[in-house]
């Protein structure tokens, strides 16, 4: 109060100076502060309580409402009053904890459990394992063949390349396009077909002729299997089945042939398209082709559908090698159904557990629904060419250090429309 009363005298002494210096803060040559009064304390105009709310009414006003947390409660909680910063941080930590717990229980943990189960199943050493039996032996099938080592890419044979192609199914044109795309030179490159070269597509004999021309290696697929067995049946039967004049579109047996033709008209019609030389070439295709050691990939093996890990190649079941899609983890029993764990998952898991020099990479086809499936130790190359997908090849070469260089090349295919 004293300071305030003093100020007007001070300013009155130098009014002009102030007016020049602070033009917005002066009025009639005097500073605005001079016009400020304390009337609000005394004047009755300001006493009437226009600006008071109900809260100040003693009826509605409660002392408790003034505080976030009433001191009474605060004293209950904290022995010494906890500083506000600590309180704030505590609250934030509690909130984060709750968020973590919620996301763990409802999102992360079920997935983790599932993965853990799969791991444990893959790891479980089964007490009874598939492959204990004597290998089924068939008179017209070769189980394993080994590729000529002079065709293998290595640091001594740098120019050599292997071109492994998935299920061709008679699409000769697309195969030729693919070979052009990878710049196939028959002097240094070797073609390997993963089975199912025939059936469904437009030119099955053409594909076989092309493969024979290039001295390609092959593997027996389930379509070759069925066709060759049906052909064998035809030749062996005591009563002859209709000859070339049989209508290829027929779907019914006459009464005489009913019980022994077994309805395999399609297999018979297909078998009739091939010459004896082509049939012999198809018959010499083994079930498993052992390609050999290529740096970094271990022992490379080519089959049509899959292999059971832990069973030597000679003891694999031929039917399952040509047909398997899934495997039972308890007994390691392969199956051609689609329910269950994919066989390549177990294969890769088992390979990773072996010493590096004992590992093996398998290249296969057969499963066009899942298409191209490239994993570390298994390469699935069937991209469904005959149904309008792609024809895929894996080109394997060697670097100067002897390490394998692989490349995946595909060409688009026309939809041949046949879905069996």
């Amino acid at each position: 109060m004293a300071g305030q009363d003093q100020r007007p005298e001070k300013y009155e002494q130098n009014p002009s100076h102030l007016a020049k210096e602070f033009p917005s803060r002066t009025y009639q040559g005097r500073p605005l502060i001079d016009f400020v009064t304390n009337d609000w304390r005394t004047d009755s105009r300001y006493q009437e309580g226009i600006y008071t709310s109900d809260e100040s009414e003693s009826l509605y006003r409660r002392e408790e409402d003034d505080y976030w947390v009433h001191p009474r409660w605060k004293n209950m909680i904290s022995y010494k009053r906890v500083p506000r910063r600590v309180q704030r941080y505590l609250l934030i930590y509690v909130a984060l904890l709750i968020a973590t717990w919620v996301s763990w229980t409802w999102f992360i943990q079920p997935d983790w459990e599932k993965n853990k189960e799969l791991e444990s199943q893959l790891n479980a050493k089964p007490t009874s394992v598939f492959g204990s039996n004597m290998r089924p032996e068939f008179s017209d099938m070769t189980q394993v063949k080994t590729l000529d080592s002079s065709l293998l890419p290595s640091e001594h044979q740098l120019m050599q390349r292997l071109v492994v192609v998935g299920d061709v199914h008679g699409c000769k044109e697309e195969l030729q396009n693919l070979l052009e795309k990878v710049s196939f030179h028959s002097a240094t490159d070797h073609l390997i077909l993963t089975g199912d070269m025939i059936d469904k597509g437009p030119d099955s004999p053409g594909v076989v002729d092309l493969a024979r021309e290039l001295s390609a290696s092959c593997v027996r697929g389930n379509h070759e299997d069925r066709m060759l067995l049906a052909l064998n049946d035809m030749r062996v039967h005591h009563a002859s089945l209709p000859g070339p004049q049989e209508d290829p579109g027929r779907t019914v047996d006459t009464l005489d042939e009913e019980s022994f033709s077994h309805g395999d008209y399609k297999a018979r019609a297909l078998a009739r398209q091939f010459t004896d030389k082509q049939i012999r070439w198809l018959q010499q295709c083994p079930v498993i082709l052992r390609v050999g050691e290529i740096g970094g990939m271990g022992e490379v093996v080519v089959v049509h559908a899959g292999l059971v890990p832990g069973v030597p190649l000679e003891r694999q079941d031929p039917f399952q090698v040509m047909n398997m899609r899934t495997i039972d983890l308890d007994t390691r029993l392969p199956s051609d159904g689609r329910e269950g764990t994919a066989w390549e998952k177990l294969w890769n898991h088992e390979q990773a557990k072996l010493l590096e020099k004992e590992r093996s990479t398998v290249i296969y086809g057969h499963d066009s629904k899942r298409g191209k499936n490239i994993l570390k130790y298994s390469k699935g190359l069937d991209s469904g060419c005959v149904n309008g997908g792609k024809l895929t090849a894996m080109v394997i070469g060697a670097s100067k250090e002897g390490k394998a260089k692989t490349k995946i090349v595909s060409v688009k295919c026309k939809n041949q429309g046949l879905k069996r």
Partner: protein
Amino acid sequence: MKFRLDFLLPLLAALSTLSEALPVLRRRDADIESLYGITRLNRDHSGKKGDPSGKYFHESTFHPHYDGRFAEKILSYDERRIHLTALMQTYLSTMSDIGAETWIMHGSLLGWWWNRRIMPWDSDVDVQMSYHSIKFLADYYNMTIHHYKLPGIEKGRDYMLEVNPNYVIDSIDDKLNVIDARWIDTETGLFIDITTLRRNRTAEALGMEGVMMCKDKHHYLEKDVFPLRDSVFENMPVKIPFAYSALLEEEYGPKALTQTDFENHRFDQDKMEWIPLRNPRVRKGPLRDIRPKLRTPKTGPGSGI
């Protein structure tokens, strides 16, 4: 004269039907009386009296896997193995000579899968045949005796092929005659039950294609059985269904194909044989099948259980 000859022939035919001189096929089974001279038995041990009248094949009164017209006692474990093996080999040899299309199934297929032999605890052999083959056998080889010289038996042994005339009945409602033919060892009474794999007419009527069935209620897809594969069983060439491991997996489950301990036997991986763990007794009662996981149980008269 000419007129009388014309009249004579139809008169003769009419008379012969009256006197039943023309051969008329009547349904009756081959009872022991008709087999005197083939069987060495005088007493009939077949359970014929206890069986319903329409049933053609009968099991013996003491064991379902022995034919009562030829057998009077149960064989020991070792004897049974030898005779069953001979039974299988002679059957396969005969069928391949005749040209009948037959293949092994069920327990025999499982035995083939493990080590190309009959499993030692098995007391029967399971084979199937195509309809054309059984018709051929019924027409030309029914009740024929085949003589085989076997190692250890100087005189050799006779085997009889008997076809059930009810094989022509296509439906599973014919529960009494589920077995279509039998290959019988006339000295020991062991036999092979032959069933026919037929086209499933009811499924075809519903529009499903390629479904086949047996009268013992087994169902198969045609593409799983045909085309047949050639292999070896008990050192004899044999035919195997196309998708053999898929069929075995479906019927017996994964344990039967991987468990090396079974029925008091252990599969020795070096010798590739089932070794008995201790001297097994020959069971007197009916033997249970190897954990069949069939959709419908393989039971009932004539099924061998």
